[in-house]
C-alpha cells in the first residue's frame, strides 16, 4: 500500500509542477522550477526517498513511475521554454525602428574627376594593347619640339603657347616627348605606348588652363597604315563613350604627323542630330549648344607619325606608326557637362563629392 501512496504523492507533485511550469513567465522562473523539480533536492527526488519503505519488488515500480514523471516534467519544461522563446521572438519582432534616421561614421573619400577620367581612358587603352608610360614635365626643347619636327623658328611652334624655364628648357606642352624618350630607350620598333600626364600651355580662360592632362597613344610597327589608325581610334571612342558613337576624321596639321587629322565624334548632347531632346540644351535658334547644331564635337588629334620623328630617334626608314592625343579635361567636361575648366582645380568638395 505504501507503493500506492508514494505513486499518488508522485502524481500529485507532478501535476502540481506541470501546472506551475505552464504558468511560468520567464526563463529564470523556468530554471528555478527545473531545480525545484528534478534537482538533487527536487520535490520528485524527495518522493524517491520513501523507497526504503518499499519491498524489493515494489522498488523498481516506484523507480519507473518516478522516471516517467520526471520525463513528463522535462517535456513540460522544454515546451514552456519554446513557448517563452517564441513569445520573446514575437515581442522583438514587434519593435519598430526608424530607418530614416541618419547614418553615422566616416563616408568614403573619392578620386578627383580628372583622375577618374584619366584612369578610364588609360584602361580602355590598356585593353587595346597600349603600355602606360610617363616622363618628365620639365623638358628640353629637343624632346618637346625639335625631335617632334617643330624646327626652331617655325610658325608651328605658335600652335602651342609655351612656358619657358630658359631658352632650351620648357614645361612640356604635350605628352609627345614621352614618345621620343620611349623610342630612344627601346631603340627599335614595335612600340605600343600610352603616354600620359600633366602638360602646360601659356593660356587661361574658361576652356583653357595653364596646366591640364593629356593622354596619347603611339603605335609603331612594320606595315602599320591609316586603316589601323582609323580602326583603333574608332574602337577607342566607341569603348570610351557608347558603341553608337559616330566618328569623323577631318584632315588637319600637326608637325609630328603626316597626314594628320582632327577627329570629331557625334555630339554627346544631341546624339549627332544637332538638336537636343532637352530644350534647355539648345540655343536661341533651337540648335544644340554643345555642338552648335553641327552634330559633331572635336575630341582628339591624330595622324601617321611623321618620318622626321622616326629620323630623330634613328628608327628604320621604312617604319610606320600612328599616334593620337586626347585632353582629359575635355573628355571630363563633355562627360559631366562642365563648362568652366577652372572648376577642376578649385577642388571644392561640393564639386568633388558629385563624382
Amino acid at each position, binding site marked *: 500500500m505504501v507503493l500506492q501512496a508514494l505513486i499518488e504523492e508522485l502524481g500529485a507533485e507532478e501535476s502540481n509542477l506541470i501546472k506551475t511550469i505552464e504558468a511560468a513567465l520567464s526563463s529564470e522562473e523556468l530554471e528555478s522550477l527545473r531545480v525545484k523539480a528534478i534537482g538533487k533536492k527536487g520535490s520528485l527526488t524527495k518522493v524517491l526517498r520513501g523507497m526504503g519503505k518499499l519491498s524489493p519488488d515494489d522498488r523498481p515500480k516506484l523507480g519507473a513511475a518516478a522516471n516517467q514523471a520526471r520525463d513528463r516534467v522535462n517535456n513540460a519544461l522544454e515546451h514552456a521554454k519554446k513557448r517563452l522563446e517564441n513569445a520573446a521572438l514575437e515581442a522583438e519582432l514587434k519593435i519598430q525602428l526608424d530607418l530614416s534616421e541618419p547614418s553615422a561614421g566616416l*563616408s*568614403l*573619400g573619392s*578620386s*578627383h574627376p580628372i583622375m577618374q577620367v584619366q584612369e578610364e581612358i588609360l584602361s580602355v587603352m*590598356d585593353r587595346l*594593347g597600349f*603600355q*602606360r608610360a610617363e*616622363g*618628365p*614635365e*620639365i*623638358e*628640353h626643347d*629637343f624632346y618637346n619640339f625639335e625631335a617632334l619636327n617643330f624646327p626652331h623658328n617655325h*610658325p608651328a611652334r605658335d*600652335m602651342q603657347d609655351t*612656358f*619657358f*624655364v*630658359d631658352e632650351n628648357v620648357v614645361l612640356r606642352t604635350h605628352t609627345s616627348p614621352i614618345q621620343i*624618350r*620611349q623610342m630612344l*630607350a627601346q631603340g627599335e620598333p*614595335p612600340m*605600343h605606348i600610352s603616354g600620359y600626364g*600633366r602638360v*602646360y600651355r601659356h593660356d*587661361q580662360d574658361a576652356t583653357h588652363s*595653364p*596646366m591640364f592632362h593629356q593622354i596619347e597613344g603611339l*603605335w609603331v*610597327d612594320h*606595315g*602599320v*597604315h*591609316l*586603316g*589601323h589608325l*582609323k*580602326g*583603333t581610334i*574608332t574602337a577607342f571612342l566607341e569603348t570610351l563613350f557608347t558603341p553608337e558613337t559616330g566618328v569623323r*576624321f*577631318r*584632315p*588637319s*596639321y600637326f608637325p609630328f604627323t603626316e*597626314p*594628320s*587629322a582632327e577627329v570629331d565624334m557625334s555630339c554627346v548632347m544631341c546624339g549627332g542630330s544637332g538638336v537636343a531632346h532637352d530644350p534647355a540644351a539648345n540655343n536661341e535658334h533651337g540648335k544644340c549648344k554643345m555642338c552648335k547644331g553641327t552634330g559633331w564635337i572635336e575630341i582628339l588629334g591624330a595622324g*601617321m607619325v611623321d618620318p622626321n620623328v622616326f629620323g630623330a630617334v634613328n628608327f628604320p626608314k621604312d617604319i*610606320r606608326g600612328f599616334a593620337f592625343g586626347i585632353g582629359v579635361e575635355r573628355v571630363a567636361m563633355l562627360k559631366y557637362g562642365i563648362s568652366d575648366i577652372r572648376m*577642376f*582645380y578649385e*577642388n571644392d*568638395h561640393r564639386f*568633388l*563629392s558629385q563624382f
Partner: protein
Amino acid sequence: MLISRKLLNQWIDVSKHSIETISDKLSLAGLEVEGTETFALDARVVLARVLHVEKHPDAKKLSVLQVSTGENTEQIVCGAANVFEGALVALAQPGAVLPGEMTIAHAEIRGVKSAGMLASEKELGLSENHEGIMIVAEEHSGRLGQSIATLLSLNDTILEIGVTPDRSDALSHFGIARELSALLEQDMLQDGYEVEELAWVDAPPSLKIHASDLCQGYRLVSFPNYCSSKLADKASCDSRLLGRVGFRSKASAVDATNLCLVNIGQPTHAFDAAKLRKRAGSEGVSIEVRCAQEGEKIKTLDEVEVVLSSEDLVIADRKGPIAIAGVMGGLETAVDENTTEVWFEVAHFAADSVRASSRRHGIHSESSYRYERGVDPLLHERAIRELAKACNASQAHILGEQGLIEEAVSLNFMHSELEALVGGTSLDSIRVVKRLQNLGIKTRCEKGEYHIDPPTHRPDLTRSVDVMAEWVRTEGFDSIVGVKPRPAKPPRLGSRRTTRKHLAKVTQARGFREHVNLAFMSHAEAELVASSDEYVCIANPLGVETALMRSSLQLGLLKNAAAQMAHSGHTLRCYEMGTIFTSKHSENSPNPRQAGSALGADSYAKEHEIFSALEISPSGKDKLETIRGALAKVKLVVEEVFDFETSLLFEQNQDFGRLWHPSQSASLVCEGHKLGVFGVIHPRVLAFYGLEKYSAVAFDIDVEKLAELRSQIRRTYKAFSKFPGVTRDISVGVPESTRVSALREILREAGQGSALESIDVFDIYRGDTIEAGQKAVAMRLTFQSHAGTLKDEDVDPIVASALALLESKLGATQR
C-alpha cells in the same frame, strides 16, 4: 582668316553652291570653317530721292521731307543735317529690320507722320559713319525704289577659316579659290586685267639689294596720275569689303595694299614718295635692302620706337631704316591723308628672317604672319595687277627685279607606297594624277612611279609623304577602311601604379578626397617651404601666383582648405598625388642629343612624385586636444599605408623644413630610408593662408621610394596559433615627456624570448586623478604559444619583470 564670298567670286564662280556646301568641302579638306556670318540688308531699304525739304513746325532740328521711291511719294521726318533737296538716299520703309534688330514702323514725330526713316551708313551696318544720312552716288539715279542691297551689292557671307601653319597658300581669297577649284573640280576665273609697264622717267630712285639671301626680289611700283583723293567712291566700297574681312580702312593706298594682301596673299607696302624725296634732299632717293646696323632705330607705323639688331633686315634710305622688311613700315615715310604720290613695295623676304625680327621686337603684322609661313615668290606680277586694280590704274612705273627663285626639288614615290599607306586599298593612278594636278601640283605617273614638281605656292610639300598626304586630305578619311592592328603583348602593371592605387584606397577609405591643383606656386609660398633658392622659375609666368613650379603639394591643399573653410568650417580631409620640382644645377645639364635614352635621367629639374594628405579642422577650445585627436586618426592612415611593414619609425626632432611644426612632426623611416613626413603643419604656414583658427595634421610620402619598397615585399603565409592567447592589462603612470615608443621598447625587451605576441596601447589618460605632468598609459599584453595553452605561471613572472623594468628605467609607477 576671314573670307568674303563676294571677293571669292572674283576668282571662282561659287554662286551655284550653298555656303554649307562650300564650308563642308573646305572643312573636310583641312581648312576648317569655324564660323560663318551673313550680311543681308533688308530689301525694304530702298533707293529714294528727296523732292522737298521743309522745317518741322514743332522741332528746330528736324525736317519734313517729301521723298520719292519712283512710284510713290512718302512723307518722312528726318533729323540729319546733311539732307538736301535732290539727294539720293537710303529709305528704310516700315517693316524693315535694320542691323541690331531695329524695326522700322510708321511713326508720328511731334505731330508729323513719317513713313519710315532715312538711314545712315552705320544704321545700315555698312560703316561706323553716323554723321548724317547715307548719300548715294548720282550714277544710280535711274533705279529709284530698288533695294539698296542689290543696288550697291552689299550682301555678303563671311567665312571664318582656321588655316593651319603649313597652309600659307590658303591665306588669301585666291588661295581658297584655288583650293575650291580642286575640291569642286571647277575652273577658276581669269580676271584679264592688264597693266602697261612704263619707264620710270621722273628722277627714279636708286635701288640696291645687299642681302640677296634674305630678299629674293624687290620692286618699287608707282602708278602715274595716282591721286588718293580721286578714288573716294571706290574707296568706300573697298573699305567696306576690307572691314568685313577684318581690316580697318585707312588711307586709300593702304587699303590698296590690304586688298592685294587679302586677295592674293602678297604683302606690299606703301611709301609716301614726297616724304622719301624730302629725306633725300638734293641727292635723290636711294633705297637699299640691307641688314640693320646694331642699335639703329626706327619708329614704326604703330608709333613704337624699335632698336634694331644686325640680324634685322631693313629697307633703308640714306638717312636710315624706313621699314623692317616684311614686318612693318616706318612712321616717317608712311602715307597719310595728304599723300599725293605713292611708291608701292612689292618684295619677297626670307621666312626665317621675318619671323626672327617679328619675334625679336614683338611686332606681329598681317605681313609678317604671311611671310613667316611662306609667301609664293612668284606673285609679284599678280600683286602689281592687284594694286593697279585697287588704284584704278592701267599703267605702272616699275623699278627693281625679282631675284632667283630656288627651284623646288622633284619628288617621287611608288604607287604601291601610296596604296600601302591607305591600307592596301587599290587606287587608280590616273585619278591620283588628276587630283594632284587640280591642286596645282605638276604630276606624272610612269611605270607605277609618280614624279612630282611641287609648285612655289606650296612650300609645305618637301617630301613624298607630304604629297601622299595631299591625296588623303582631298580624298577624305571616309575612303579608308578601319581595321584593328595585330595585338600587342598585354601591358604590365608597374609597382608605381599599384602603389598609387594602394595610397588612394587607404586614404579614400578614411574619407580623404583627391584634389588636383595647378603645379605652380608664388615666391611668397616658396618662402613657406624653405629658404633656399632651388626653385624652378618660369621665365614667362602668367602671373605672380604662378611664377614658380611648386615644391610642395601641401601648399595647394592648404589654399583649397582656406577657400573651403570660408563656407564649410567642418573637418576637411584631402589628398593630392603629383610632382614637386627643385632645380638642378646647370653644370650637369646633359645634352639631349647624346642622351641616347635613359628615361628621365637627363631631366632638367629634380622631379619627385609625392603623395600628400591633409586633415584640417577647427581648433576648438582645447587646441592641443584637437591636435592629439587628429594626429591619432591620421596616424592610423599612415600606418595603413605601410601595412606591409612592421618597422615603420616616427623619428622626431629632425629638420623637416619650414612647413612642419618642429616639435610635432616626425620623419617616416623604414629600413633606414626616409620615406616622408607626418605631423602638424607649422602655425606660421596656417596663418599665411588665414587658417589661424584651424589645426592641420598632414603627411607627405615619396611615392617612388614607397613603390620601390613595396616592390620588394614577398607576402608569405605565417601560421597562427591554434591555442587561445592569454592577455594581461597593465597601466603605468609616466611623465608626459616619456614617449610611448620607449614603453614599448622596454616591454619588448622584457618579453624577449617569451610568448609575448603583441603590445596594444588602448588608453592614455591625463586628468584629475593623476598628477599634473603625468600620463597613465594602459596597455594590453597578449601572450600566445604555438605549443599549447599558456598557464598563469607562464605569463605572470614576465609581466612582473616587465613592470619592474619599466619602473627602474623610466620611473613608471604601476596604477
